[in-house]
């Protein structure tokens, strides 16, 4: 019998990082299925590629570049890869996607020191890199339900609901927006499927719940104010359902690594994201502002954490 000496506690919860990451992948499965249904095989291929290559690249970096011999894959690379795939246009070529993925994980994550160390959401870092590097590929929006086997380059394209509204004042059917039967990035169109996946994470207690509540609430209330002043700004329901808001608020802003630790901080973070998103939508030159808002707020997280430090038990005054 060999007795081990260790520090307490000697009981540990059975949960671990890998299970957290796997649960995110499970939560995103309905969205991936929806993407395949609305945008066909190529969208599905990008999702699978993102998941597989993301994890492989993460493993490669850890094992061979950072020479961590005891590294055990944890699924975090797969999550970043899949989220990147859900955030790109259906007409993005595979080579460009791979460049974006390498940028997301390489620059967005490992340059900062790897898992847990990055300031900016890696998937969004990759997306914005692609948006700036390949603006044409990233802003060609294929019509949904063109047929599963149809090549995206043969399908017809047009503007997204947000752009249509901003430029021409055309309002898309709320039902189509809700179920995802609209043009947009691969995984952002279906509010329904995103919410289903999100609820899974809520049930599994894997989410900083205050972030999406505050984010979506801010967009809803603020757009209601603008709408009441002038209907040309669009009504709150439209703003909630369109663009990348659902994907951003439910899955990107809630990334644990790049969001605040304290509940109050999370509420502030969500408010900032919501405020900036709407301001960019209404007054910016881009039709959508979710990615930029979240990245901007990511940069403020250390500051938010500092300001919202919890009061230590027994502390008198502050």
């Amino acid at each position: 019998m060999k007795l081990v000496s260790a520090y307490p506690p000697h009981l540990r919860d059975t949960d671990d990082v890998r299970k957290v990451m796997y649960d995110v992948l499970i939560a995103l499965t309905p969205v991936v299925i929806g993407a395949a249904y609305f945008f066909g095989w190529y969208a599905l291929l990008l999702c699978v590629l993102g998941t597989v290559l993301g994890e492989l690249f993460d493993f490669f970096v850890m094992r061979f570049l950072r020479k961590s011999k005891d590294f055990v894959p944890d699924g975090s690379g797969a999550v970043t890869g899949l989220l990147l795939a859900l955030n790109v246009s259906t007409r993005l070529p595979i080579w460009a996607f791979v460049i974006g993925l390498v940028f997301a994980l390489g620059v967005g994550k490992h340059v900062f020191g790897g898992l847990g160390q990055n300031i900016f959401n890696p998937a969004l870092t990759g997306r914005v890199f692609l948006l700036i590097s390949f603006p044409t590929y990233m802003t060609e929006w294929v019509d949904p339900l063109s047929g599963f086997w149809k090549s995206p380059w043969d399908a017809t394209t047009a503007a997204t609901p947000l752009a249509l509204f901003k430029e021409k004042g055309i309002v898309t059917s709320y039902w189509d927006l809700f179920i995802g039967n609209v043009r947009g990035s691969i995984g952002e169109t279906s509010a329904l499927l995103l919410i289903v996946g999100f609820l899974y994470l809520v049930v599994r207690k894997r989410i900083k719940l205050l972030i999406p509540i505050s984010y979506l609430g801010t967009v809803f209330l603020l757009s209601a104010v603008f709408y009441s002043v002038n209907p040309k700004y669009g009504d709150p329901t439209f703003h909630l359902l369109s663009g990348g808001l659902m994907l951003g608020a439910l899955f990107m802003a809630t990334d644990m690594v790049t969001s605040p630790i304290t509940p109050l901080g999370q509420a502030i973070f969500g408010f900032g994201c919501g405020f900036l998103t709407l301001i960019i939508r209404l007054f910016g030159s881009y039709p959508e502002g979710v990615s930029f808002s979240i990245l901007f707020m990511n940069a403020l997280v250390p500051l938010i954490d500092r300001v919202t430090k919890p009061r230590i038990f027994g502390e008198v005054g502050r």
Partner: protein
Amino acid sequence: MKMAFRGGIHPPQLKEFTKDKPIETMPLPNKVFVFLANHAGNPSKLIVSPGDEVKTGQIIGVPDGYISSYVHSPLTGRVVEVKKIFHPVLGRPMDAVVIERISEDQDQWMRLDTSGDFERMTREEILDLVRRAGVVGLGGAMFPTHVKLSPPPEKKVDTLIINGAECESVLTIDHRLMLERAEEILLGILIMMKVLKVEKAMLGIEDNKRDAYEHLKRVFKGYPVELKLLKTKYPQGAEKQLIYTLTGRRVPRGGLPMDVGVIVQNVGTCVAVKEAVIDGKPLVERGLTVSGDGVREPKNLMVRIGTPVSEVLEYCGGIDEKTEKVLLGGPMTGISITDLSIPILKGTSGITALLPRETGVQKPCIRCSRCVIACPMNLQPYLLYLLATKRRYDDAVNEGLMDCIECGSCSYVCPSKIEHVRHIKLAKNVYRATRRG
């Protein structure tokens, strides 16, 4: 109404092995090893020499200074030697008196002189009995009880709180004491109330011990002791959390319970106080739980202080060959020992033997915020860990390093398997050492 504090966790309780087992008295050991030092205060001064014959309850060490206590022989026998043994709480070798039994069945007691009628005694007489009986806090801190019962006059103490929460997993000894020795607990409480001149006493008990709650309710009927049912949540039995739950008062940072008018005593200490004052019996034995999945026959036991852990485990059928850890205390805060010849201390509330558990590999912090939510002291364990590993001790102290009660809730919930408590303990030691020098 059930009450609780903010934060906390719900670890597996593992109390089912022993919660229905009455307290057994373990047969006398042949040899005991009695430390002259408790955790708190100065070691006692030895007043016997090798070769001396001693009786059970005879004083072998006298206090050295104010925060120090009497030490008594737990056996009737002969003092063999005084040698240095590794003290599991202080973490370094300390003087221990080795006493050997002379004959098989001799157990002659030397008791304190007492009338047994505490209501006729003065405060000073009671305190003197408690002091001379060597009573210390049996919850684990081993702080001399007579000192705790003599708060300085500027501190207005109005409430005595009895800790019957027993929130630590595996341990059931307090549960059993409340079921089997409720009358003695009550007497102990009444004695301490008299000493402290308080009108109000409360006993907090977690709602996983309903039977004990109902029993105490019957016993306490008509006495000024309020029984409070608490939500089962770890660490409900931590002093500051218990006080807050029961009274809504927050012990200030770096302060003591008496700063908010409260004195807290463990139920085991109540029994020890009663035995000292009414029976004149010095503290030479204590109740403890021997359990965990590595123990073959888990038990609640009454054991003489100084009995080696190995003998206690042997009496409980021994431990499984696959046992990975043996702990003094329960699994959340217990100290792991690798040498089973270490003796039972006055503050040892249990021995836990655990089979190997899957721990998982440590990963970097993913800022999931679970540790912050779990921390009952409202600290940010992830930050303390970070600062401690970066050796930024002063910053860590500013973030509340010294406020940490080392309950282990953060490490328990951490999905990255980070050992916050380990690094916090080390950082505290470094900080204390450097500040002194």
